[in-house]
């Protein structure tokens, strides 16, 4: 599957880039003030074009910097500020590990505890490229319950960095009619890189039977 990549210039996340952090620290510790006061640092970010429908290619590949009908959060601190305002529904749509059958009896199956943005609801499976009616209904129902049925409620959706599941799920929520959908592009890695706290959560049970698919 070939997709042309374009380089879009966007404002980098505040905590992104170790080199920048080092430079800033250098400036603060040596000079007592930022070296490049007032300068906005630009960084080239790889971005895929927005697909027409849902993304059905590899889940872990370059993602867009846009989502039609929704907003993008590029900076974990902006997300933190948004959450402080209250009333925001936060959805983690990353995959949950699946235990394969016939694993050796002595082999430990010990998926790591799942770190999430505090207050997140974990809905695995709702961000796949194609979902069966059962998963679609599950997502609609969980969203309705979490938002109290208010389509104007702010809904933040994330998974990992370079992960299409959250883009697809956000697009799906927009399609359901939610008017304030925020896609947090940097995912849990971006949140943690900004030094923000996480909490451990368990997934909401996926509906039994057919799972979604990624053609």
């Amino acid at each position, binding site marked *: 599957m070939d997709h042309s990549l374009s380089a879009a210039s966007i404002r980098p996340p505040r905590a992104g880039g*170790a080199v920048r*952090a*080092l430079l800033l*620290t*250098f400036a*603060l*510790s*040596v000079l007592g003030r930022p070296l490049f006061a007032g300068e906005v640092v630009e960084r080239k970010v790889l971005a895929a074009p927005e697909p027409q429908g849902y993304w059905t290619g*590899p*889940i*872990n590949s370059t993602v867009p910097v846009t989502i039609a009908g929704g907003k993008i959060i590029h900076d974990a601190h902006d997300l933190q500020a948004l959450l402080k305002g209250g009333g925001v529904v936060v959805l983690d749509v990353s*995959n949950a*590990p*699946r*235990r*394969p*059958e*016939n*694993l*050796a009896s*002595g*082999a*430990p*199956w*010990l*998926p*790591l505890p799942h770190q999430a943005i505090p207050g997140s609801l974990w809905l695995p499976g709702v961000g*796949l490229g*194609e979902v069966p009616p059962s998963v679609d209904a599950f997502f609609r129902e969980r969203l309705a319950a979490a938002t109290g049925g208010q389509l104007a409620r702010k809904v933040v959706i994330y998974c*990992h960095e370079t992960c299409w599941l959250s883009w697809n799920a956000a697009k799906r929520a927009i399609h359901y009619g939610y008017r304030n959908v925020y896609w947090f592009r940097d995912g849990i890695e971006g949140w*943690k*890189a900004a*030094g*923000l*706290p*996480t909490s451990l959560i368990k997934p909401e049970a996926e509906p039994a039977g057919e*799972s979604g*698919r*990624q*053609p």
Partner: protein
Amino acid sequence: MGSVRYLLLAALVVSMAQFCVGPAYADDDEAARADRWKDLQQAIFPGRPLKDGGGLIRLDAPPRALDAALVPITIDMTGGKRVKGVYVVIDGNPSPLAAHFTFGPKADPSSLKMRVRVDQYTNMHAIAETQDGQLFVATKFVKAAGGCSAPAGADDDAALEDIGRMKLHLIGDFAAGKSEQAVLMVRHPNFNGMQMNQITRYYTPPRFIRTIDATYEGGSIFHLDSDISLSTDPVITFGFVPQAKGQMKIIVRDSKDATFDHSFAVPGV
């Protein structure tokens, strides 16, 4: 003059460290990794102390892997025949015990290479077990993510078509009684059940290698218990000690109870 510069540099590094390492998340992650390793030790080596492997075992892997589904690792062991086996643990993987090699009388356990899947930023551990039952551990931190859900290839059917095909490649010149390195390549998708098939659009059912036995003239080189953390089309480099020309036999068993075996002629002088 030079020492002053170093002092300044050291002061700068210290002041930077205060700021850069400052955020709690780094410490939290370290603590979480340490806790994880404690849990895994309990699960895999209950009640057995692990000693620092310095001098006996060394683990090497790229700090940032190009492909999380194909992370090359190298284990060097200097214990010779004292080493009975080696465990490979990938802490962050849902099935963390990736491999357990038990060496036989024909083995040269000084060096071992393979390719593994890594699901998230993780510590890896290689643990050598000596004949007297002591455990020695080496650690390496690897930045790679997504190796468990990365598709094995474009076409599952093609991957299954020549499943079990093997190649063996010998490195270096043969000399009786001297250690020889061999590279074993096995065609096997090692499906872990977490990959999405690109054509049928569903999760590919798991099918992975459970054991590999390598023997030389009837004597064991190694027995491997492996798991879903082994990469697609496993490649394993190992040492053995041929006495004369003879046959190396490889037997692979997978989770569908299929057995594949192949004999290779090891040339004499």
